[in-house]
């Protein structure tokens, strides 16, 4: 920073720092501390005990759920890698026609509500699914979608875009010489891939994979819709919480801590692996994608399109279903707008709530995210470093856990927010704030302080330099970040499911209950509204941002 700053500006940023710490303390640290402490309290006597954890770690019911969660986490992660890495390799190394279409479809699959996947696969492959029925008519019995393999399938198809987008951009930034050196030293194409190319993009692959793992173990909607009797930590935490209503939710909390620990271990493992690897990309000597002819070309295109087609199938199913004619919950054949009419008659509040809460949360995230990222990037103090670290926490805390923390914190006195819209806005805000901060700080890091200093040396005041030079340069990143916050906010389910009341229910909550009630028409119509909204945001990001798909990971 420049040495001479007006006193007022220093005070302003100190105030920002103070307020940020207070807000994060209240909305993040305190609720999680409550959850943490509650896990160590005896449900009746309220004295310190390790019994809750002992129970979770010894009882077969919980251990089974723990094992299941690990299986779907690893399964989702591996599945996402198996889809994402080959797709990334194809689009990065070969000239694939419609590459931007593929990227856009992958992004769309990514931003669609997670539970849509589960529900759509039920529509296709469930007991009464159309593919199941058609194949049954042909005498072929398809395996059921319900169960562990269904969950892993849905997770793989839902989360692979993370692996794909991260790996693709890493593959594109590999210096061509590395692969040439490997070839020069005697590697065949395949050896080169496994000995050099994949190790070089391992940081990107592992980041994507860990993200898939964390999201898979935290996901609540998918296992509860197609898991049937298959229990995961997130479903039993939710069930425990709803059955412990009235008493302190100690067991739900203990289970939650287990999920946090798993996520944190995964993130720490990835950080540990990454710490030994520091590869600077080179933008000078990049690989040129090859044109592939003949059978191989057909294979590459077929593979790419098959993957994104499978991933976007749920979206197509949802939109298609929403236009089917219904009478009550029953599909009567033919097309019609009945489902939309019922949405408007029966749950108009849900639409209004979703947009109202998400919009407010997005504005808050954008403003707070911009200010906090300026503190983190430009004023490197111990406190801002701490802020940066603390903001990692929401990444590893599942929505169910955060919601329980909020219910424990904001339930009395002046802080009694239970049942209000405010508590939903606040949880959306704190859960997505890190993403907003990351979006703006990555842009800010690319803007050299010297640009601001140049403006100051040309006579602009520091404040004017910030607003006239830095802010306009930050805008694309800020807008992209805001769009992403908005998309995740309107699709949020796992935390709001514990916090909503009849007055504050959002679209994802309504979709979830509609699916459970067998009201597939309403679920599809609501989902389509969500999808179109998300799609519009994606369009804005792709249209106005330079790094395109990079914004979504």
């Amino acid at each position: 920073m420049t040495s001479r700053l007006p006193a007022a500006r220093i005070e302003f940023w100190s105030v920002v720092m103070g307020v940020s710490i207070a807000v994060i303390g209240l909305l993040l640290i305190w609720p999680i501390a409550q959850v943490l402490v509650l896990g160590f309290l005896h449900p009746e006597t309220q004295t310190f005990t390790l019994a809750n954890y002992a129970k979770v770690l010894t009882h077969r019911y919980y251990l089974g759920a723990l094992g299941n969660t690990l299986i779907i986490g690893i399964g989702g992660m591996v599945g996402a890698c198996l889809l994402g890495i080959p797709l990334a390799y194809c689009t990065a190394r070969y000239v694939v026609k419609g590459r931007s279409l593929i990227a856009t479809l992958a992004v769309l699959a990514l931003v669609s509500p997670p539970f849509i996947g589960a529900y759509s696969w039920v529509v296709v492959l469930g007991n009464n699914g159309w593919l199941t029925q058609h194949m049954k008519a042909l005498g072929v019995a398809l395996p059921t979608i319900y169960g562990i393999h269904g969950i892993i399938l849905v997770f793989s198809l839902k989360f692979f875009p993370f692996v794909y987008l991260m790996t693709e951009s890493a593959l594109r930034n590999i210096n061509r010489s590395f692969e040439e050196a490997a070839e020069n030293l005697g590697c065949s194409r395949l050896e080169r891939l496994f000995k050099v190319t994949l190790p070089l993009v391992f940081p990107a692959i592992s980041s994507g994979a860990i993200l898939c793992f964390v999201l898979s173990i935290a996901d609540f909607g998918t296992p509860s819709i197609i898991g049937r009797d298959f229990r995961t930590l997130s479903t039993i935490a939710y069930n425990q919480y709803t059955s412990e209503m009235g008493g302190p939710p100690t067991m739900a909390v203990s289970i939650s801590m287990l999920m946090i620990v798993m996520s944190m271990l995964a993130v720490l493992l990835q950080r540990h692996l990454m710490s030994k690897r520091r590869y600077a990309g080179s933008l000078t000597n990049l690989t040129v994608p090859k044109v592939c002819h003949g059978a191989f070309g057909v294979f590459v295109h077929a593979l790419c399109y098959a993957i994104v087609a499978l991933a976007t199938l749920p979206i197509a199913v949802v939109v298609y279903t929403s236009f089917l004619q219904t009478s009550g919950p029953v599909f009567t054949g033919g097309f019609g707008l009945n489902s939309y009419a019922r949405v408007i008659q029966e749950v108009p509040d849900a639409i209004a709530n979703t947009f109202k809460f998400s919009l407010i949360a997005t504005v808050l995230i954008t403003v707070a995210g911009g200010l906090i990222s300026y503190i983190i990037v430009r004023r490197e103090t111990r406190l801002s470093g701490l802020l940066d670290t603390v903001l990692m926490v929401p990444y590893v805390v599942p929505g169910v856990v955060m919601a329980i923390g909020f219910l424990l914190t904001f339930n009395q006195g002046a802080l009694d927010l239970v049942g209000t819209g405010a508590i939903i806005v606040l949880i959306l805000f704190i859960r997505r704030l890190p993403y907003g901060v990351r979006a703006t700080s990555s842009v800010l890091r690319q803007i050299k302080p010297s640009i601001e200093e140049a403006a100051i040396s040309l006579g602009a005041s520091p404040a004017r330099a910030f607003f006239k030079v830095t802010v306009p340069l930050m805008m694309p990143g800020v807008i992209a970040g805001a769009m992403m916050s908005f998309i995740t906010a309107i699709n949020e389910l796992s935390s709001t499911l514990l916090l909503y009341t009849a007055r504050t229910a959002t679209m994802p909550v309504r979709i979830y209950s509609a699916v459970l009630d067998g009201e597939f028409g309403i679920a599809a119509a609501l989902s389509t509204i969500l999808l179109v909204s998300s799609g519009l945001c994606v369009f804005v990001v792709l249209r106005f941002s330079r790094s395109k798909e990079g914004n979504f990971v």
Partner: protein
Amino acid sequence: MAQVRLKNIRKSYGNHVALKDISLDIESGAFFTLLGPSGCGKTTLLRAIAGFHQQDAGEIYLGQQSIGHLGANKRNVGMVFQDYAVFPHLNVFDNVAFGLVQQKVPANEIRQRVLSILETVQLGQLAKRMPHQLSGGQQQRVGLARALVIRPKVLLMDEPLSNLDAKLRVDLRRDIRLLQQELGITTVYVTHDQEEALSISDQVCVMHDGVVQQVGSPWVIYNRPSNRFVASFVGANNFFALDPVGESRVRLMGQEVDVPDVVRGRGRIVASVRPEKVFVNQSLGGQGWQFDGVLRQASFTGRELQLSVDVPGHGLLDALTAPSESMVALKPGQSVRLAFLAADTLYFAEGDTGALLS
């Protein structure tokens, strides 16, 4: 006998012809440098030898073996890259061992050979380091060791020093040359730096527009450039036109002088004289020409004094002299007398690549 033989290599990209019928013989054990400006085809030619580009026509021989159609992984040529290409996920030892592992050399032999070559390139202490802990110069030593340890039939180097800072570049250049001579390995080296090419090579091949302009020892390249392009690209040079005035006289920088014997009857030609062959305020010790001019700029670099002099009827002429106190005291605007010997003057036919006349 030639270790590397290129016969009629051609390569084009769309309409752009990158290599036009290149034929070269590179002697066993020679340090052979491809020199030229960017886009001249030198890197394309090197990469064709390495197997990264398939030539459109022509053949490449390594010793007796034709390698032009082998994959890059089957050629057994060592390659050192401009950007080092040291694998960032492997430590120094594993980087150097990479090619030996590919060749399925026994582990204890790999160990022995890697440690020995690391000693040779002065990295013996750094075997366990990761690449990001190394400086650029050290990384390029790893690249060199990695290429040498597989005992290639030929060592290819693609501008290996151009990413290093000036001092390091000279140090490593010296080490590369010593090592090459010690091992006696045939080396093909690409650079656009003419000073580097002259200082390191046995043979220099100057390329321009996909065509070999001249192959020769550094001495020949500098002192007997085969055409005007080589004369202007390698080293500094002054060029001036000789316009015929009647049968036996030409106009040389505004003066009418007798036509030099070698160019009698050639019409309009271009002559050149190196700046260090231009005498400043000194009398000539032989047959030559003198001009009066006005000093425009003088720059003293310690070892020498560079003068830019405006000669009426020509323009700026550069001179390079040993600095003396009286010379350094010269101020822009002062008159100076320039002179050079006919013997130091070369004559070229007209055009960018006009041939040397002799």
